[in-house]
């Protein structure tokens, strides 16, 4: 945002990597979107730690959105080796769903068999694109929250210039 503020890329990549790994692990994904918001808060904290001047909420939004996008990439990459496990989890969920749902569409049992052998490159990138959009929105929110928590510097800190 101005010359005194550090580069946003490194904090965004670190926060995004943490969020992406944690949200990609099946057992830990019970925290839902909180991992993405938490990763963006971490990115904002890292940015604030290295910044000699106070951050604006706009800084938080940008670093958070970048963290969200990198989290989507990491989440997708983590998902590749865990694909088989995820399919097994999804199958159990579909079976549970069939107990709750009034009427399941015909052939639902075969849906997962079609993807059980792997994911096509087109599907991978389409999923990545959608994830990136959703994660960026949640990440921006987390980044702004992080700025409100860690972004303020004391007056004398603001005068420390490069």
């Amino acid at each position, binding site marked *: *945002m101005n010359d005194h503020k550090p580069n946003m890329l490194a904090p965004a990549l670190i926060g995004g990597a943490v969020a992406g790994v944690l*949200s990609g692990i099946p057992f830990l*994904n*019970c*925290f*839902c*979107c*909180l991992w*993405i918001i938490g990763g963006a808060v971490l990115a904002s904290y890292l940015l604030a730690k290295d910044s000699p001047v106070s951050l*604006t*909420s*706009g*800084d*938080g*939004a*940008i670093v*958070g959105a970048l963290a969200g996008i990198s989290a*989507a990439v990491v*989440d997708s990459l983590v998902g590749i080796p865990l694909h088989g496990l995820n399919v097994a989890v999804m199958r159990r*969920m579909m079976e*549970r*769903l069939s107990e*709750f*749902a*009034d*009427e399941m*569409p015909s052939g639902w049992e075969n*849906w997962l068999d079609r993807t059980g052998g792997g994911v096509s490159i087109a599907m991978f990138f389409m*999923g990545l694109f*959608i*994830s990136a959009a*959703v*994660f960026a*929105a*949640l990440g*921006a*929110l987390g*980044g*702004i*929250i992080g*700025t*409100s*928590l860690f972004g303020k510097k004391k007056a004398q800190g603001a005068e420390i210039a490069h």
Partner: protein
Amino acid sequence: MKKGPNTVLMTWLLVLLGGLLWNAALFAAPLLRQEAPVVSAMIYAAFSPVCHQIPERSFFFRGFPLAVCGRCLGIYLGFSAGTILYPFLRRFSRPFLPATSIFVLVSLPIGLDTAGNFLGLWASPIGLRLAAGLVWGSVLPFYLITGLYEVLRLFGGNFRLKSPGQTK
């Protein structure tokens, strides 16, 4: 009309529209399950990276679970409710971030509930998860509107609403 309030109004409208579309998608997933199963599956898939979507922890609509669990539903519905309340609490003057104490206060219910469930200390009913999400979600637009306002001012300048007959 001054530049500042116009930008705030545009930011608020963007956030309001985005939130309403987001919430509409949650209900569209089960609604379209029979009529348009491919679209429905795409919506479920879009939300799957940000929610576990466990049916027992989800509300049902037309016989199928919503696209997210009860807690996430609370967060997103609370977000839209907070956005609708925003003009009454802050009007369209220059936005500012809520106090840290308020964030800590509204985060306590969802934090305790999530941690307790994860550690196996208790199993909250879905209504409590929804309520905790509603409380937390209602404060979030006050952050997003402030941050988005700053970004729009930085990259897009000030939005100006043209009055009738105004050419520039």
